[in-house]
C-alpha cells in the first residue's frame, strides 16, 4: 500500500519524549510506520518548519445526547445567528453554542481535533446519544455514562450491598451503554433534588436513601479501579458554582480514598467566600491539592466571555442558576424517572464581577497546576464557552503579555481579587501537546491515539508556526485522520466518519436478574431494549467502527 512521508516537520510527541525534534514521519494504511530502508515513498508532504502533533483529543465536550438536543430546540436564535452553508463536500448546518452534529464535526476537524468525548450520557439515553454522535462527522467519539444518581445504585448503597455487586453493576452499565468511562454528576444530588433537597454537601445524606456523596464517590472510584477501567471516575463534584465550594471539592478528593479520580470543569468548583462580595478565587488551594495528589487529574472548564448555553445533568445547580438565564428561558427536567437535566442559556460578561473572576480562576488553575499530564484543556463545551474558542484559550496560556492585556479589560474588582498578573508561566508547545493529545489518550486508555510512534493511528495535525498562537491553532495547514488529509488550511477537504471508542470490563451475568426485576417494575424501557448490542453500534449514523479498549491500568 501507498507510503506517505511527512518530511522535515518539528515533531511534538510528548508520549515518547519528543519535544520539537525535526524528523520525518511515515504513514501506511492509516497507521504510523517505520519503512524499510529501501522502500519507495509514494506521496510526500513537505512540512519543514511546521509544527507537527498528533490529532487533538477533547476529553470533555457535550456534543450528543438529550440535553444537547434540548439546548438546540430551545435556542433557534443560536441556529439562525450562525449558519454554515453547504459546501462542495460538506452539508449545511448551523449553531454557535449548540451547533448541529455536522457543524460540530467539521469545526473540530478544521481546528485539528480528531477525537471528542461526550461526558454525560444517561444510560437510558445512550442509544440516542450514540446515534447522534454517529452523525457527527470527522472525529472519533465516545462517552462517559452517568451513574451515582440512578435509583438502582442508590438502592444498592442503601441496602449495603458489597463492592463486588456494585462492580458488576458498573461493568454491566458500561457494557450496556457502550461507553468508555463512568461519570458521576453531583453525586446523589440529581436524585436528591427530586426529594426537594436544594443543596447536598459531601457528607450530607440523601433524605430518602440516607446515602452521602462521599460514599457514592468512594464506591464508584474503587469499582473502576477494581475493574481496571483505564479512565478513572469522572467527577462533576458537589455544589457546582456555589461560593465556598472549594471545601466540597477538597472533600471529594478525600472521599476517593486514594483511588484515581478525574475532577471535571474544576474551575466551577474552586470558589472561596472572601472579599466584600463573598466570592473569591480558591484556585491556589485547588492547584495545591491536585499537585499533591498524584491520583487526581482535572480539566478546567474555562469560561470565555460571550453567549453560550449551559447544559448539565446537574438539575440542582441549574435550578439555582436559572434566574441568571440570558436569554430568559431555561429547562429543568426529569429524564425517564432515573436522572435529570438542566439547560440554561448564559452570557458571560467581562464587566460582571463574578464572570470576570471565573475567567481568572480558570486561568489560575491552568497555570498553577504543575503537571500538564493531569490538567486538560477544556471549556466544558458549551458550558464555559463553545469549543471553537480553544485557539483563543491556547493563546491565553502561551502568551503572558496577551493574557495580561485581556486581564486589564475585565471588571476592576475581579482584577484586584486574582493573582493572575503575578503568574509568569507560559505554556510551551510541548505542554500544549501533552494536555490536548498525549494525556487525554493516556487517561482514556487509548494506546494507539495521542502519539506518533509506529503503530499509532495516523491522526496528525500540522500547524504553520505563528507567534499569534490563536491564529496558528485556528486553522492548521493539514489535518490527517487515519492517514488521510481531511482538512487543509482550516477547510474540510474530505469527509470521514470516525469510530466509537468504548471499554467492556468483565462482570458476573447474575447481576441481570435483579436488574430485570427493577426494569420491569420501575423503568420506561425493558432491560433487553436498554442494552446496546455491538452490531447496533455499527449501524448508528455513518460510523466507521467500534474500538473496544482493554481494561488495564
Amino acid at each position, binding site marked *: 500500500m501507498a507510503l506517505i512521508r511527512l518530511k522535515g516537520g518539528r515533531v511534538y510527541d510528548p508520549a515518547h519524549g519528543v519535544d520539537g525534534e525535526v524528523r520525518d514521519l511515515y504513514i501506511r494504511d492509516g497507521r504510523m510506520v517505520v519503512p524499510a530502508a529501501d522502500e519507495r515513498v509514494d506521496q510526500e508532504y513537505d512540512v519543514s518548519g511546521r509544527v507537527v502533533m498528533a490529532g487533538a483529543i477533547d476529553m470533555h465536550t457535550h456534543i450528543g445526547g438529550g440535553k444537547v438536543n434540548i439546548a438546540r430546540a430551545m435556542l*433557534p*436564535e443560536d441556529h439562525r445567528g450562525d449558519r454554515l*452553508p453547504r459546501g462542495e463536500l460538506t452539508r449545511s448546518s448551523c449553531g454557535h453554542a449548540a451547533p448541529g452534529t455536522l457543524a460540530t464535526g467539521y469545526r473540530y476537524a478544521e481546528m485539528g481535533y480528531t477525537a471528542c468525548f461526550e461526558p454525560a450520557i444517561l444510560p437510558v439515553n445512550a442509544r440516542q446519544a450514540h446515534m447522534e454522535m454517529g452523525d457527527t462527522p470527522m472525529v472519533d467519539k465516545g462517552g462517559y455514562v452517568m451513574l451515582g444518581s440512578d435509583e438502582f445504585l442508590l438502592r444498592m448503597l442503601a441496602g449495603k450491598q458489597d463492592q463486588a455487586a456494585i462492580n458488576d453493576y458498573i461493568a454491566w452499565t458500561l457494557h450496556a451503554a457502550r461507553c468508555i468511562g463512568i461519570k458521576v454528576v453531583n453525586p446523589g444530588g440529581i436524585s436528591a433534588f427530586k426529594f426537594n433537597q436544594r443543596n447536598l454537601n459531601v457528607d450530607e445524606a440523601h433524605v430518602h436513601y440516607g446515602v452521602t456523596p462521599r460514599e457514592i464517590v468512594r464506591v464508584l472510584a474503587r469499582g473502576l479501579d477494581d475493574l481496571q477501567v483505564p479512565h478513572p471516575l469522572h467527577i462533576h463534584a458537589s455544589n457546582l458554582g456555589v461560593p465556598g465550594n472549594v471545601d466540597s471539592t477538597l472533600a471529594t478528593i478525600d472521599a476517593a480514598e486514594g483511588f484515581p479520580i478525574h475532577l471535571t470543569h474544576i474551575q466551577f468548583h474552586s470558589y472561596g467566600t472572601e472579599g466584600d462580595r463573598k466570592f473569591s478565587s480558591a484556585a491556589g488551594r485547588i492547584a495545591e491539592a491536585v499537585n499533591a495528589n498524584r491520583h487526581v487529574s482535572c480539566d478546567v472548564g474555562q469560561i470565555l466571555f460571550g453567549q453560550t448555553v449551559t447544559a448539565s445533568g446537574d438539575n440542582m445547580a441549574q435550578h439555582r442558576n436559572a434566574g441568571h438565564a440570558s436569554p*430568559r428561558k431555561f429547562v429543568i427536567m426529569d429524564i425517564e424517572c432515573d436522572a435529570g437535566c438542566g439547560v440554561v442559556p448564559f452570557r458571560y460578561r467581562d464587566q460582571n464581577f463574578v464572570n470576570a473572576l471565573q475567567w481568572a480562576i480558570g486561568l489560575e488553575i491552568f497555570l498553577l497546576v504543575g503537571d500538564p499530564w493531569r490538567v486538560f484543556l477544556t471549556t466544558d463545551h458549551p458550558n464555559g464557552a463553545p469549543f471553537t474558542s480553544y485557539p483563543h484559550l491556547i493563546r491565553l496560556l502561551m502568551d503572558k503579555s496577551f493574557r495580561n492585556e485581556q486581564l486589564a479589560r475585565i471588571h476592576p474588582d475581579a482584577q484586584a481579587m486574582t493573582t493572575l498578573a503575578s503568574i509568569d508561566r507560559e505554556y510551551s508547545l510541548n505542554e500544549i501537546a501533552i494536555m490536548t493529545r498525549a494525556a487525554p489518550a493516556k487517561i482514556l486508555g487509548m494506546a494507539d491515539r495521542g502519539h506518533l510512534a509506529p503503530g499509532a493511528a495516523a491522526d496528525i495535525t500540522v500547524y504553520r508556526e505563528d507567534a499569534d498562537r490563536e491564529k496558528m491553532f485556528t486553522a492548521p495547514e493539514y489535518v490527517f485522520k487515519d492517514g488521510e488529509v481531511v482538512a487543509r488550511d482550516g477547510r474540510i477537504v474530505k469527509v470521514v466518519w470516525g469510530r466509537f471508542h468504548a471499554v467492556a470490563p468483565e462482570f458476573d451475568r447474575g447481576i441481570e436478574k435483579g436488574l430485570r426485576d427493577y426494569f420491569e417494575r420501575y423503568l420506561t424501557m425493558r432491560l433487553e431494549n436498554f442494552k446496546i448490542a455491538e452490531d447496533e453500534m455499527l449501524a448508528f449514523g455513518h460510523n466507521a467502527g467500534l474500538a473496544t479498549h482493554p481494561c488495564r491500568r
Partner: protein
Amino acid sequence: MSALTFRLRHEPQLRVSLALLVPQTLARLSPAAIPEMELTWGSGAIKVGELFEIRGSDASHLVFEGGSPKLDRIGEAMASGEIIVRGDAGAYLGHRMAGGTIRVDGSVGAYCASGARNGFITVDGDAGDFLAAALPGEHRGMAGGLVLIRGDAGERAGDRMRRGVVLIEGSAGDYCASRMGAGTIAVLGRTGAGIATGMRRGTLLLRETPELPPTFNDCGVHDLGFLQLLYRSWASLPGGFAALPGNSLTVRRLVGDLGNGGKGEVLVWV
C-alpha cells in the same frame, strides 16, 4: 442622483434572500461590485446581476421593480434611507429594521416587521401571518416603529409584540395581539378568533366588536382624551387612519387577559 433600481429579470423559481440589498451595505460598494454580490437562492447562491437588471446609483433610495412573493428579507436590518417595492414582497420584510422607510405596492409575506426596532413600513396590499410577531424561540416581536397595512393581515398579527404601532385598515386574522407585551395595534376591519389571548399589556383599538376570551373584563364606555393625540400622530398617513372621525374618542374599554397579568386593554369604538 437617481434611485438605485433593481428590476427583476424573471420570476424567481426559488426563494431568494435580499438581506444584503440594504442602503448601509450598498453604500459601501462600488457600482461594479453590486451585480457580483451573491444572494442566498434556495440552498445555493445567485448573483445579483443574474436576478436583477440594475440602474441608478443612489444607494440611499432603493427600488425593486417587478415584485414576487419569493423575494424574502427585503430591508432586513436596514438603518436608514428608503426602499420602494413595486409589486409583492416575500417573508421577513423589514425584519430587525432599525430605521428608514419601506413602501410596498403589493402584498407581503409572513413575519413582516418582526423584530423591528424603528422605522416606517407601508404595505398597500395584504400582510401574511405573524405581522410584527416574534420569531419561534424569541421573546419579543416588533419593538418599535410604525407599520401600516392598507389591506388585511394574516394570523397572529402582533404576537409577543413589545413596542411600536401596527395599523391594519382591512381585517386581521385569528389570534391578533396574542401574548402581546406592549405597543399599539389598531384594526379598522374585522378580527378573528382567539383575539388578544394571553395579552399581558398594550393597546388594541378596534372598530368591530371582537370575540374576546372570557378572561377580559368590560370596564364600560369612556371618552379617552389621549386618543386625540394618537389620531393626530397618524394625520399624515395615507388612507383611513388619517381621517378618523372626531366622535371616535368614545370607546368601550375591556381589560385582560386576566390569565396572563391582565394589563392589556382592548378599546372598541362605540
